[in-house]
């Protein structure tokens, strides 16, 4: 083993450089969020969070996530299922479509909804006539969020499902289980950790999305502002302490996401180890 290792000195230097870089680049910004959030004292922090506009932003953000996440959860399972267990024409296209929202600029994601529902399009005047407000209102915010977050669940599930193959499902089917029963008793338990992590990621992105939502929101305070947009407004008004106070909520969400992620990875590794020991497939 020693032949594959550098000398202790080189090793320590490399670890040191890596830690220093991560410390400077990631740890300091993280601390800065919380230090600036409390820079005007704890009461000011809670005043900023209890501000009616902040509360309205929190509500809209929660509503958005509450609609976008379940929808993408159902779709994510369906898409991953189709991608892994079946062969059909257009499968490559489906794969590309799943990846698109992740690879285009968030500004473009917002732009396409403006082009779709804007007053100058075919759909726009009809919507105005029927008094339906989509653009610059919560519906567009929710739609844009769905668009941006919809690969998260599917992308987590596809590798997990691929690794497991479909032998167990086929066994269940030959034993006479219905399609739904097979899914519920065989597929779901197998993919639960991947699914859970996908939901966590999807939720984090749904609550934190800025660029796409910024394009389609009307930036009306207390009405069409999500948390990230509210942060922008506060910051541009030089109300830094309040901006960071609101930012700290989202930063905590990010930290929770990371803790869950490493927790899931740990459990997953333990399960694989257990499988290797007993020789059974979980």
């Amino acid at each position, binding site marked *: 083993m020693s032949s594959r290792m550098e000398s202790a000195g080189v090793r320590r230097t490399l*670890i040191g450089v890596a830690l220093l870089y991560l410390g400077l680049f990631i*740890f300091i910004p993280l601390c800065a969020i919380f230090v600036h959030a409390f820079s005007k004292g704890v009461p000011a922090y809670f005043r900023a969070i209890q501000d009616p506009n902040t509360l309205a932003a929190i509500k809209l953000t929660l509503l958005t996530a509450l609609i976008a996440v379940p929808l993408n959860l159902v779709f994510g399972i369906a898409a991953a299922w189709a991608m892994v267990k079946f062969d059909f024409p257009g499968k490559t296209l489906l794969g590309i479509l799943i990846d698109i929202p992740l690879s285009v*600029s968030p500004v*473009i994601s917002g732009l396409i909804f403006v082009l779709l529902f804007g007053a100058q*399009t075919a759909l726009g005047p009809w919507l105005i006539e029927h008094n339906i407000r989509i653009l610059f209102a919560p519906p567009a915010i929710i739609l844009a969020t769905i668009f941006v977050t919809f690969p998260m669940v599917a992308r987590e599930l596809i590798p997990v499902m691929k690794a497991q193959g479909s032998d167990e499902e086929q066994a269940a089917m030959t034993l006479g289980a219905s399609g739904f029963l097979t899914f519920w008793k065989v597929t779901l338990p197998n993919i639960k950790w991947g699914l859970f992590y996908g939901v966590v990621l999807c939720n*984090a992105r749904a609550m934190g999305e800025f*660029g796409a939502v910024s394009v389609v929101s009307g930036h009306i305070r207390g009405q069409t502002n999500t948390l990230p947009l509210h942060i922008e407004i506060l910051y541009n008004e030089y109300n830094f302490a309040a901006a960071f106070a609101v930012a700290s909520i989202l930063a905590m969400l990010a930290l929770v996401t990371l803790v869950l992620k*490493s927790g899931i990875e740990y459990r997953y590794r333990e399960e694989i180890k257990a499988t290797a020991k007993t020789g059974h497939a979980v």
Partner: protein
Amino acid sequence: MVYLSLIVLIPLSMLFFKASAMGWNDFWGTVSAPRTLAAYRLTFGASFVAGLVNVVFGTLIAWVLARYSFPGKRIVDAFVDFPFALPTAVTGITLATLYSRNGWIGQYLYDWGMPSAYNFFGITLALTFIGLPFVVRTVEPVIQELDGELEDAAVSLGASRWQIFFRVIFPNLIPAIISGFTLAFARAIGEYGSVIFIAGNMPGKTEIAPLLIMTKLEQYDYAGAASIAVVLLIVSLGLLWLAGFIQKYFSKRIGVS
């Protein structure tokens, strides 16, 4: 499939529809205007530099995480994904505050004659921040799966550790590094939230392409916004296709699929 086309396909086709409706001359006029070209240059230039920085430090961090053990490694490992998990607006205001004239880090950089915010440096910094996880997470698994026997063989033939790294290990990492770079680069091109706070946003100087799309939109120049977006979209999709192609090509050559 219906859901997919409702949510993805129809909106996306609107983009091309809108851009094509304005005719080739108008399209080319918008895309080749000095202000647009300056924005593209800035976006692609800063994204490229940020990608290179991430290749160096991302590979180093991936190496340390994959090969060495040290106290607190699991926490460090989790923190690599922090830029990915943190909402971009939060990243933006945090970096702008840290690196501005009076910020914790900015005050030293400015004293050393290195203005760190509202210029190319600041933009590159933000893009480097968000791109780091892409390189680390692409390179790390490849390092973990390297065949140690090749290294043993090289040692028995009398190679030094540095020779082994550059002749045996590094060539195996190249495909992963390139595809990590491409992913980080593609992400950086479209990035908006984390950049605008630190960018300065001066037309022709520190205005990134996604921001220019935003500006056109606010001026109700929908066709102009769409044409700038089409170019960005084609470039980033092209890059992702390239990354996929590189990975496929090399994995075939090495013989692990």
